């Protein structure tokens, strides 16, 4: 077996491990730019998975999806986010309402929960359990990050991570959604990021801060 085929055949199971690691480190990190970098790593791992599937199934469509993921999630969206960080000239902190070590414990618990949740489901559908669990864990972590991070940019990041989870779940259960839908969703997300970026500017202008907990002041 060639080196690439060897790597590709283990890609799906091995890369889930890296995804777990990115999730745990996302919980641990306090700095926004590090979070974005971790998002890049996570997206790159998912893109690699798509390419591995494309290689094993010789599917041209999958190559295209992989390229879209690579361009959008590894390059374009992070670039936009970094741009926002720079432009908004905000503090580096994500303003977490839970400190790192407990966050990591929660993340670990979420990973275990997702494992126990998909246990029977994966057997029924006859799909690999670990990647499916990873997908669920990504979604849960996305939610968790949005709940515990107060800065608007970190919330955008949480949403993007959530979307990564949905994408990966689709990848695991059906080896990818149809190409058109996939690309549609991808651009949807891109537009979402742009829109939310605009909103963050507005939030900053109105409240002189990016802390979304300040939005409470809007209440009459």
């Amino acid at each position, binding site marked *: 077996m060639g080196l690439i085929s*060897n*790597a590709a*055949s*283990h*890609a799906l*199971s*091995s890369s*889930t*491990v*890296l995804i*777990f*690691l990115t999730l*745990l480190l996302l919980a*641990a990190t306090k700095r926004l730019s590090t979070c974005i970098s971790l998002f890049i790593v996570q997206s790159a791992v998912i893109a690699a998975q798509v390419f591995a599937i494309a290689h094993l199934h010789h599917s041209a469509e999958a190559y295209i999806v992989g390229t879209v993921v690579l361009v959008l999630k590894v390059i374009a969206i992070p670039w936009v986010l970094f741009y926002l960080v720079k432009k908004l000239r905000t503090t580096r902190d994500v303003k977490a309402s839970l*400190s*790192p*070590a*407990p966050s*990591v*414990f929660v*993340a*670990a618990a979420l*990973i*275990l929960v997702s*494992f126990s949740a998909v246990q029977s489901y994966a057997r029924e559908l006859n799909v690999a359990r*670990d990647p499916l669990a990873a997908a669920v864990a990504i979604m849960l972590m996305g939610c968790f990050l949005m709940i515990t991070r107060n800065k608007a940019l970190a919330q955008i990041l949480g949403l993007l991570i959530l979307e990564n989870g949905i994408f990966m779940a689709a990848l695991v259960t059906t080896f990818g959604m149809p190409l058109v839908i996939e690309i549609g969703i991808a651009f949807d997300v891109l537009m979402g990021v742009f829109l939310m970026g605009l909103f963050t500017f507005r939030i900053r202008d109105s409240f002189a801060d990016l802390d979304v907990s300040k939005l409470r002041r809007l209440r009459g």
Partner: protein
Amino acid sequence: MTAVKLLQFVVLLASAPLARGIIARLKAILQRRSGASVLRPYYDLWKLFHKEEIVPASASWLFRAGPRLAFALTVTAAAVVPVLCGSGLLSFSGDFILLIYLLAFARFLMMLGALDPGSSFGGMGASREAMVSALAEGPLLLSLIAVAILAKSGNLAGVVAWTTGQNFFDISAVHVLALTALIFVVLAEAGRMPVDNPTTHLELTMIHEAMVLEYSGPSLAFIEWAHALKLNLLIALIIALFAPWGIAAQTGMIALLLAAVIYVVKLFLALLAVAVLESVVAKLRMYVVPEFLGIASALAILAIVFTVILKR
């Protein structure tokens, strides 16, 4: 075979200052300085061994015996680690547990040595070291145990043999989690950057340097050598547990030479990683260190849980 084991033990012992010199040089290059020679730590040791020793008037015999015993304990810990062939000089069931505790004993003696003269710096350093080491021990042991469970073996030789037989691309969650936890802990244990700054002499930040402030001459030489050896042996341990591929399976001259070359490459990569990390990462505040080690603990616990999840 015994000759090979003895050789790797001696190499580990002798190359410890070199590893330190390489890190310092790499850091210098990363900071656009030319830096000192990589052999600098050897010159330092030579100088210290020939210097007069100044002992505080208030110190007991422990002040001088501590560093020597700590050195002996660290050397013994090094004898457990496999480097070139699949087993250390000392190899028995549970050897990695003993390794951890030998290092703990060495630290215990260093803390006592720091408290001995009754200076404020010594107390400060020892007290901080006590906190770091108490919290580091759990994740260190758990991550090693996680790997041992997966390999179904109670000693390092067994783990190395099992890992060598695995496919490199078949990365298991246990290994990744345990490795991450272990890297965190090793940085803390060896007093490297995010936890302790090895080049600082600012009393607000220093841990290890505060402990050894009163030492001079041969005692300091033993401390420095043991400290360098600790980093070297922990890196060797990580390499043996997580990337043993290329370790010599038989005793032939060529196999051994090949193993040595591969090991040197791996070691250099590890040292480069340390140097890069130290150049880009800022030191953590004192009371963020427990958070850092708490994360390591969470990772290590998860690694243990994964040993069971992966089985079913």
